[in-house]
């Protein structure tokens, strides 16, 4: 039915990150994500998880432009967003594994994380209106601060995205939308799901748009800095990254031909070759985190529903609830 062809990535990442902290963060995220897929393969993780293999540099670049008062809204593919903002692989892994010390006590899991200045949710498109509300708050109470929402190319299918962009433009909200355009949504190539372009959508609302094809976080930050300053002044911005999704959507569900995936550019081999010690250090760090967190007891949900639950239900030790 769709007439458009899958959109190929027009520019492949080729540069190596120039700054050491960027390399460190990217490697941390890479090894974290790889470790998750391993844990899944070994049956030690349940549920679902979406890794950002290949895209690690995006949040690493963006986070460097954010201050402590800024608010990040993340999505289903959010581990990189979190780790680039907080150096806390333990808290995140514990959340994903449901162990003690989990950022959200194991309730949210991979897709629903909250921490001061950070929030994710798993329903596509929901976050942009919320981001607009946060931006409205920040404009008044933390002038100069912004709300930064990450969304994928596929998320442009959702109407709520447009409702929020329209309002952000009208009200001149300090809203930064980071689009991780990886050419695919679950199994659907962007060309089957998006008519027109992201740039065109920005223009539709009179919003600034910039395309990023670079992959060195330092260079990206330098490119984006003046635009982001504009956001802080009330000019919402859409930053579109062209970036490769190297892994499956979730786990084991990649139906792209292997050669297509293999042809995607990966920043990792070059960085690992250029900084083998750092690579090893981060791999080891993640391995330690995995070992340490795996050994923790299950997370405790202190806020869990109690017997005097408002709906009058009675907790049952076997799980679930019953009302007579």
């Amino acid at each position: 039915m769709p007439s458009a062809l899958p959109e190929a990535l027009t520019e492949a990442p080729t540069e190596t990150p120039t700054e050491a902290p960027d390399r460190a963060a990217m490697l941390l995220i890479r090894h974290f994500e790889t470790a998750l897929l391993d844990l899944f393969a070994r049956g030690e993780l349940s549920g679902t998880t979406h890794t950002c293999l290949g895209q690690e540099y995006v949040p690493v670049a963006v986070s460097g432009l954010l201050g402590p008062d800024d608010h990040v809204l993340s999505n289903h593919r959010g581990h990189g967003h979190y780790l680039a903002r907080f150096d806390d692989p333990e808290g995140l892994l514990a959340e994903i594994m449901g162990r003690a010390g989990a950022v959200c006590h194991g309730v949210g899991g991979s897709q629903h994380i909250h921490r001061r200045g950070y929030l994710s949710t798993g329903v596509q498109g929901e976050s942009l209106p919320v981001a607009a509300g946060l931006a409205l708050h920040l404009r008044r109470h933390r002038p100069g601060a912004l709300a930064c929402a990450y969304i994928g190319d596929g998320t442009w299918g959702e109407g709520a995205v447009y409702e929020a962009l329209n309002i952000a433009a009208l009200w001149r909200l300090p809203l930064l939308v980071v689009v991780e355009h990886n050419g695919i949504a679950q199994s659907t190539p962007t060309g089957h799901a998006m008519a027109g372009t992201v740039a065109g959508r920005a223009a539709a609302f009179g919003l600034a748009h910039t395309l990023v094809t670079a992959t060195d976080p330092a260079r990206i930050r330098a490119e984006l800095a003046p635009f982001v300053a504009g956001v802080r002044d009330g000019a919402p911005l859409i930053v579109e990254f062209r970036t490769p999704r190297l892994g499956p959507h979730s786990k084991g569900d990649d139906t792209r031909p292997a050669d297509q995936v293999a042809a995607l550019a990966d920043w990792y081999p070059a960085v690992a070759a250029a900084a083998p010690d750092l690579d090893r250090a981060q791999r080891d760090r993640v391995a330690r985190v995995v070992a340490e967190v795996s050994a923790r007891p299950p997370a405790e949900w202190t806020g869990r529903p109690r017997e005097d639950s408002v709906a009058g239900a009675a907790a049952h030790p076997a799980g679930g609830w019953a009302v007579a």
Partner: protein
Amino acid sequence: MRVAENINAALHTVLAGDERAYLIGEDLLDPYGGAFKVARGLSTRFPDRVLSTPISESAITGIAAGLALAGDTAIVEYMFADFLTLGFDQLVNFAAKSVTMYGERLPMRMVVRCPSGGGRGYGPTHSQSLTKHLIGVPGLAVFEMSPFRDAAEVFAEMLALGQPCVFVEDKILYTRRMLPAVAAPFTVEVRDGVAYVGTGERPELVLIAPGGMAERALAALRTLLIEQEIAGLLVVPSRLYPVRLDLPPVPHVVVAEDGTAGGTWGAEVAHHVHARHFADLAAPVTLVHGADAVIPAAPHLERHVLVSAGTIHDALVRTVRA
């Protein structure tokens, strides 16, 4: 004072007393002041905190949730309750969930106001009472405006809950008097936000109804008293959900509401009543509600599907005589 004015005054109170409070909705600016004029004067007095928006119910609800998560107080005006369906995802899957889904309680001061109900000839998509769809969402409470209780008090209660609340406002009630004089032998007593309208006699039945139904319910009880010499007690809670009711032991309980048949608020109330008062009951709780039908535009057809005082009265008689 009319009910619409009372709600308007309550909004003035909230916005004046809390400089982090916002009102967000469509066509709110003066002189329009919202489709039902409940926002009158607010945009003039609080120009920065009354946000008149595009026609974007989903975004509006999400924006309110964002504000509330940041510690602000967000009140949303839906132009018609019918449009709650458009913001349902933001309300159910985001706002209500956010209070608990991040593992620790995130308090949110957020109220969604929605003008509800038929009787105005607005037709199938502008006349509904959708309360039923809002019942049983973890983290979401539902209240309804009642002529027996100052809206300012209800707003204070809702905001103190620290979780999203829906506030149902009956459109016909807007034009009615607050604290209506109730003719003898009935008198009104309000306890814990619940109005009890009775005769002082020990009631043979209890009739439970939300604020928008109270007038019709009382008319039915009065006829029952006069024509059948049966004393009933009308109970009008302002919090509809979670249900918590303190009822005298009676053999008969009837719940009357607007909204169509099936999955009603009344079924939830009945569940609550059966669980607590089964031994006292001579019959299961009777439910009175609108027809299992769309609400037609033509007034004579609309009347056919909506609940009238007569509908309730006959249900009371049938219940007691069964």
